[in-house]
């Protein structure tokens, strides 16, 4: 709903742009694409910040290189690969899912199954039916039969 509202309002405003409002600056689409790539790269000097977010000098340089390479027509993946070749897998915000990181990506599922298994074992252990009262001996059975016969008479 919000999104729709925003889109609608945005359209109205962009309509205003087309009408030629003076001095309205729009974002450069190339810039946006650059940020998309930069978001996937880690700023190596600033710890846990992407190149898109960081103000460090290194991030600025990297953004410039991304812009340049994209302008030369390189694909986003090629740009990412360029940095991986120089900084290693460390530079990617999202670790590659193949190769040695299989443990990282599969372990949540393994852990979930493991803990679920433990929980199931526990629940099953809980459902052990308490031992039934010992059965009647033959003598008792005969007594019951006699009593029943007596009642029916």
């Amino acid at each position, binding site marked *: 709903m919000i999104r729709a509202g925003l889109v609608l309002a945005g359209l109205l405003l962009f309509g205003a742009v087309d009408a030629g409002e003076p001095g309205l600056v729009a974002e450069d689409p190339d810039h946006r694409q650059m940020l998309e790539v930069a978001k996937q790269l880690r700023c*190596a*000097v600033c*710890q846990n910040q992407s190149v898109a977010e960081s103000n460090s*000098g*290194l991030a600025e*340089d*990297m953004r*410039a*290189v991304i812009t340049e390479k994209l302008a030369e027509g390189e694909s986003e993946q090629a740009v990412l690969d360029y940095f*991986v*070749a*120089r*900084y*290693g897998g*460390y530079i990617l915000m999202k670790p590659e899912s193949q190769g040695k990181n299989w443990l990282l990506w599969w372990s949540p599922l393994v852990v979930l199954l493991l803990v679920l298994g*433990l929980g199931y074992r526990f629940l099953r252990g809980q459902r052990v039916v308490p031992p039934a009262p010992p059965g009647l001996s033959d003598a008792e059975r005969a007594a019951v039969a006699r009593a029943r016969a007596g009642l029916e008479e």
Partner: protein
Amino acid sequence: MLRWVGVAIGGLLLLLVALGLGLQKDPKLIPSPLINQPLPELTGFDLDENRVKIGGLGLPRIINVWASWCVACRTEHPFLMEAVGGLSGQVELIGLNYKDKPEAARQWLDQLGDPYLWSLQDPNGRAGLELGVYGVPETFFVDRAGVIRHKQVGPLTANSLEQGLQMITKMEAAE
């Protein structure tokens, strides 16, 4: 139930050992994938505006990334001045003047002495990116064939210099 506690204790002890080992690691150190890769060819101008090129065949090289704004480089510099004499003839010491103003760099070298054969200007840090530089000073050890054999992040010391040179000879011998 008790068995699981036992497993948990075992796992935890393992974890503690791993964390203890982790204490000796520097989390900020990024291993370079360029080790044992050929040094990319970087061309440009040195501080005297001569055309120069890093990369390709030649003498074994030490490429030291430095800048006049870099505080740690100032502590490293006297060591370079002292060590360069012992290297001459066998190993070239080349500078990569990273994201610096040429005037500032020249002034620094005039003041403190110039240990480098020459220093490549890298005003916009592009050459640095090619080498995967993220913190100055960094030092690359390159063999005769132009292959990077070792990288030192942080100021060069007698130990790390020795280590780097050994890596050059060791890896060359191995191939």
